[in-house]
Every structure is written in C-alpha cells, then in structure tokens.
C-alpha cells in the first residue's frame, strides 16, 4: 500500500535501477570516439590517454549525468502533475512553467547574453520558470479550482510561445534565429559540469519536494473534498507542487532546452507496474524518465544524420509510437 512498497511489482525497482545504470554507462561509452570499459576505468583512476580522459570526464560524463537528471525530473514532474490535476494529459508544460523557462533562455540567446557570461542562458531559463509561478500562485491563494489553474497555465504557455515567436520574428540575423531554434529543439550536446552544477540541485530539490507530496496526491484520488476530509492540506500541497515544478523543471529545461513528451509518456508507461495510485508512480517515473531520456540521447548519437539530430525531436518520435501503442492496449485504465 501507500509508501509501503507493496504498491509496486516486486522487481520494479531493482529492474529500473539496473536499466538506469546500464543506460548511464552506455551513454558514457557512446560517441564518435569509442571508449571501452577498461579505458573508462583507467581514466577514472587518473591513468591512460589524457585525451580519452578529457572526453570522458569533460564531455561524456556530464552529458550522461544530465540525461539522467533531466529525464528524472520530467518524469516525476509529469507523474506529480497528473496526480494533482487528476488528469492523465498533464505534464510539466501544462502549467506554462517549461514554456516560460524556454522563453527565458530565448531572451538570453536573443540578446547574446551568453557572450557576457555562459551562465546567463540557464539562469534566465530558471527565472522564466519562476516568473510563470507569479500568476499561478496568485490564483492558488484565491483557492481557485484545478481547472482554473490549467486554463491559466495554458494562457501562460501561449504567452511564452508568443514571446518566442516574437524573438524569432525580430531575430537580428538568420544565425540568431537558427541558434534559438536549435536551443528549442533540445539537446545535451557539449554540456559540461557547469550545467550539472545548475541542474543537479534544482532537480534534487524538485524531486524531493514532489515525492514528499505523495500522500496528498493519493488522497486527491477522491477529489478535493475527499482529500481534505482525509486531512490533506491542499493549499500547501499546491504551493509545494508549483515551486517544485518551477525549480526542478526550470533547472532541467535550462540545461537541456525544450524536451517534450517525456513528462506525459513516462507516468503512463509506469502505471501498469504500480497499484496506479499517484504516490506509487513518483519514483518509478523518475527512473523511467531518466532511462527514456538517456536512451534517446544515446540514439541521437547513433542515428547517422548529416546535421546532428536534436534530442527533443527524437523524444517525440520515440515517445509518440510508444504512447499510442500503450493507449491502444490500456485504453480503459488510466
């Protein structure tokens, strides 16, 4: 039952952990320069070819870590929001938080702020996510329904998209427009430990805050009155959830760019392996998100294309068929 571990299939966590480690390792070994396990071990020990060592520790390792972190955050965020909004269509973008994070980054790229300081792009993305919170929190204080929250989220997302379109429209050069587009498509290419430093605390705080709300999310299975009569403090839950998504997803989007579909698909894929209660879905969705995104990030390196394939493009291409297959099989049980 709740939080007792009995809400999951018995082998679910060991299997997810194993898969997470496997894709993490595979992600480190994959790339234009093939690096075997022995080279990896010597690099970690501080021995071996310094170039291999540099590739491994400065390029591959941060990329692998970021794949796991961003995926975990998007998966948990999707699961928590589906539980909170009691809507199987929910994902982090639904409250307008990730589109606003994208707008923040686009503004930084538009004004060439990255040249001033490389941290400004991710910083503005996090600020964008937090800016999306202001109207949401105002509504939340007034005790508006979840439907109002979704509608406000859609409005915020539309505004963010309009802002992004404006930036593309007024882009000073085709190169600037290209750079914005490229960021929007999402990627973990050429990331460093600086990006891990941004994403790791955001994602850790975000996931911890969401997992702490599992019980309230379970109570919400019975609707708002049902949940409150079971002792859930819904205004507190809403506040924590909004902050967690803004911090966690804001931090994730800041380093990865726009990556859609993971937050929507992952909870659906995991639900059949749990007792289908929102709390039982949170951690499996973190692992599954990490696995899915890392697998997609490996795939973008393997698929031979003239221009490098972007991660956000592939997650949608991978996610949609899996999702539709899943819907056809599971259509009655959300």
């Amino acid at each position: 039952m709740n939080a007792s571990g009995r809400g999951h299939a018995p082998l679910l966590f060991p299997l997810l952990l194993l898969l997470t480690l496997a894709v993490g390792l595979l992600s480190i070994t994959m790339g234009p320069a093939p690096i075997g396990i022995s080279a990896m071990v010597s690099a970690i020990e501080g021995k071996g070819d310094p170039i291999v060592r540099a590739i491994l520790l400065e390029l591959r390792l941060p990329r692998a870590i970021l794949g796991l972190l961003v995926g975990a955050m998007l998966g948990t965020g999707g699961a928590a929001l589906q539980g909170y909004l009691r809507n199987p269509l929910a994902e982090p973008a639904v409250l307008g938080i990730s589109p606003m994070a994208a707008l923040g980054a686009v503004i930084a790229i538009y004004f060439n702020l990255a040249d001033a300081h490389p941290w400004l792009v991710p910083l503005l993305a996090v600020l964008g996510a937090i800016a999306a919170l202001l109207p949401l929190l105002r509504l939340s204080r007034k005790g508006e329904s979840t439907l109002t929250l979704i509608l406000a989220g859609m409005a915020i997302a539309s505004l963010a998209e309009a802002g992004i379109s404006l930036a593309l429209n007024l882009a000073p050069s085709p190169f600037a427009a290209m750079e914005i587009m490229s960021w929007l498509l999402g990627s973990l290419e050429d990331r460093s430990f600086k990006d891990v430093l941004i994403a790791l605390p955001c994602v850790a705080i975000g996931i911890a805050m969401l997992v702490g709300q599992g019980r309230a999310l379970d109570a919400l299975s019975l609707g708002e009155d049902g949940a409150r009569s079971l002792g859930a403090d819904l205004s507190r839950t809403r506040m924590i959830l909004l902050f967690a998504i803004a911090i966690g997803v804001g931090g994730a989007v800041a380093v990865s760019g726009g990556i859609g579909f993971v937050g929507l698909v992952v909870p659906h894929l995991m639900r059949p392996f749990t007792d289908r209660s929102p709390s039982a879905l949170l951690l499996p969705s973190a692992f599954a998100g990490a696995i899915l995104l890392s697998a997609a990030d490996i795939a973008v390196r393997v698929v031979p294309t003239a221009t490098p394939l972007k991660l956000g493009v592939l997650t949608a291409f991978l996610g949609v068929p899996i999702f539709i297959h899943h819907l056809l099989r599971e259509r009655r049980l959300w």
Partner: protein
Amino acid sequence: MVTITCRGVDVELGRQRILAGIDLEFAPGTLVGVIGPNGAGKSTLARAILNLIPVSAGSVTIDGADIARLSPAELARRIAYLPQGQELHWPLSVERLVGLGRLPHLAPFSRIGEADQAAIEAVMAQTGVLALRDRIANELSGGERARVMLARALATEAAALIVDEPLASLDPGHQIDVMTLLAGRARAGALVIVVLHDLAAAARYCDRLVLLDGGSVVGDGQPADVLSEDALAAVYGITAWRGEIGAMPLIMPLNRCR
C-alpha cells in the same frame, strides 16, 4: 465519543445564503438523519461541519474545539466523511481504495502498519466487500462501489461519521445492509450523521431527524414527530401514509398536496 455543536452557523455562497442561523448539537451514540427537499442545505451543513466550506457567521465545534482551528489531519481523525457520489480518479484496487481511509493516521513517510491493515480488513468484512479486494474499484457495479466507498470512510475509525446520500445507487437489500451498519456504528458509540432523501429509511433507522428547509432547521426530534403530516405538507408539499409495524415507524409518500 465526540459531540459536534453548531452555533448560529450561516453559510453564504456568493450573495446567496445557503444556511442561516443553524443551532444544533449532535451527541455521540446517535444516528441522526438530516432530511429536507433538494436545495434545503443538507450537504452544505455536512460540508460546514467538516470545514470544507467556510462559515460566514457562527461556529462549529467538536468536543468544544473550534473545527477551524484544528489541523486538517486532526479533524480527519475525528470525523470521517463520505460525500455524495464519491468520485474516484484513478483505477485503484478495492483494498488500496479502502486503505486511503487510513491516511489521517499515518505519520509522514510511514507505512501501512498491522493495526491499519486490521482496520482495513475489518471494514471490508463489515461492508461485505472482502471478495472484491483485488477488483478495480472503477469497474464495480454501482451498489458494490457504494459499499466500497462506505468501507473507505469507515476505515478511518473516526468517532464521528458523516455520510451524504449513501443509499442512492443501492438495491433494497443493500440499502437495509448500509442503514443497519450505520445504526450499528451508532449503537457502538459513534456519532453518525446521514443525509437522506429516503423518508422511509430515515423514519425506520434514525434515532433523530433534523429537517431542513430553505437553509434553516424547521424540525428536530424523534422521527415520528418530525415527519408530521403538517411538516411533510409544508416542507415537501406531499401527503404520506404513516404507520407502524411493531415499534418500527413506516412512512410512504403518496401524493403532491400543492
């Protein structure tokens, strides 16, 4: 054992006054039926007692403590609630759903313990849903689902229970089962407040009836006294046949009288 007291309770939604000047005291060990026509304020009274809707004047206390000052979890441990037409948003198993009733007792990050599991088993047995424990609750018949939802409310083992329209989708056999179960809870010392439309069930099972009309209490007392010919005509606009089998009061609505 708890006593719930409403003192001068007003509830307003927008500019509309739904409840006006409600003064009621509910004692432990009684099965209280709250009756009245549609829109009389029955469900609003239940929600006001549970602090699910703010009162604009007056106060609701439980054993002398203002419910607005109790933490949500503390209130949930004292009063269990089954709303009318209880919704369920995820396809949970019956056992998992009934287990939600234990949430007010669980410390943060703690697990369902032996005592919780025993309570879950006991209420599933009482409501006759043990055989359904692994079924998905959304796939049950209306009657099965109603009993499972009642089990969920009972699983809290609160000293007070408020049930809104529990008979709506039940066949006569299960209606008798549910009302007998609620009466049994009251005999065991619980305060049970049940919102009812079925006057026959109200007359037969309840120790006390509170008749609401237009947001005010217009009758309060023994069922036979509250369901008088005049009250039925004035509040419901009906005539009814009334009688007794042994000591059991019976009532059957007959015609519109206005």
